[in-house]
């Protein structure tokens, strides 16, 4: 009986020991995991990891043709020149902003048109609220405003409707930003193939650009003929300039930027 009691007691002790050791092992593993988590939290608190620069794989600047001296108004300004600028445009301008990496301001949206530019919800403000161009103009002051619209309106039947809306848009911008130099840019051409097969037609683009140029004169704003820096001898967009006949590659966006840098009113 005593032996049985002794054996039973020993077994109980052994069982307890096994449980305690297993518990210690499991707790050790779990504690190690928690320490690793705490370290990463402390590291975040100390310093935010800045985003890594992702190298662009596109063609470097040496293929960008510089404008000839008699084409430009001034020596190129630096990127900083555009820090107090605002760009208004559709997806082509969106591509320009992204591919040039300019530190600037932009109200750009795929499909933006002259009749929706002021009131369409574009982007978000610092509080995560959707904003419109009109709200942005009321809240901020810009020294230069660059506008390029028109490619999405090529399907409109009446060109005069297009230019009436464009004029209304610019007059509103002028009233909200009287201090700003306003540049309205020519609509860039499309490739010959695109022009042959869609509503994105170079003849219509040329008609719209004539109207835009006259509008600029009547409103006393600057017309920038950006297309001249990128069209070929046939006055169409070269195939190498675009991924789909309309939107520019990174190197052609750099050409666009170089044109803007050498055509500034203040430096003229």
């Amino acid at each position, binding site marked *: 009986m005593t032996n049985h009691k002794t054996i039973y007691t020993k077994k109980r002790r052994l069982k307890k020991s096994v449980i305690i050791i297993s518990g210690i092992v499991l707790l050790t*593993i779990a504690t190690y995991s928690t320490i*690793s988590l705490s370290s990463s939290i402390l590291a975040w608190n100390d310093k935010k990891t800045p985003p890594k620069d992702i190298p662009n794989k596109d063609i470097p600047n040496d293929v960008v043709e510089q404008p000839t001296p008699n084409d430009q108004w001034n020596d190129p300004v630096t990127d900083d020149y555009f820090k107090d600028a605002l760009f208004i445009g559709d997806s082509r301008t969106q591509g320009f902003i992204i591919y040039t990496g300019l530190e600037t301001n932009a109200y750009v949206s*795929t499909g933006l048109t002259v009749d929706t530019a002021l009131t369409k919800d574009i982007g978000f403000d610092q509080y995560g609220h959707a904003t419109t161009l009109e709200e942005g103009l009321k809240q901020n002051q810009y020294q230069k405003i660059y506008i390029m619209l028109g490619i999405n309106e090529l399907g409109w039947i009446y060109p005069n409707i297009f230019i009436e809306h464009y004029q209304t848009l610019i007059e509103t911008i002028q009233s909200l930003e009287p201090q700003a130099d306003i540049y309205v840019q020519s609509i860039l051409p499309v490739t010959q193939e695109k022009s042959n097969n869609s509503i994105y037609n170079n003849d219509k683009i040329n008609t719209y650009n004539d109207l835009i140029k006259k509008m600029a004169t009547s409103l006393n704003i600057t017309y920038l003929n950006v297309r001249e820096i990128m069209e070929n001898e046939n006055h169409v967009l070269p195939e190498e300039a675009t*991924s789909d006949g309309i939107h520019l590659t990174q190197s052609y966006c750099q050409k666009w930027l170089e044109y803007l840098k050498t055509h500034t009113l203040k430096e003229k």
Partner: protein
Amino acid sequence: MKTKLLIITLLLLSLVLSGCNQKNVEIDTEQLLEELQEQLPFADQLSPIKENMIYHLYPIDSKNVMSITVLTSSGATAEEIAIIQTSDVEEAKKAIDQRIETKRNDFANYLPKEVEKLKDPVIVTKGNYVILCISDDSEKARTIIEKY
């Protein structure tokens, strides 16, 4: 009885503490971006967006962001990749949903065929990372992201 209670308590404690470790995920962003661009059939060249512009497109409080990288198309397609490391995963997910909704509205009238890509965008949460990939091959995108 006491022994069983002790075992259960220890097991539960271990599970809870080990579970916390799921948040301790580190993703090699550069490698993931490279692999996605190499393996997926993107129609357009994707380029990175400057951080100030990212917050214009994704409504996220920058104070919550540890790192953020967005690669997007020239405008010719709806393709995009976003990798957000954040202390507020729910905010990042909501911002991604809003970004996708904006793209759906933009492309619906402009390039309806691009809306197909936006029907099944890949959104994966791993620890405190939220990853978005809009491409023509959602299945492959998801497989690649899940490896990290």
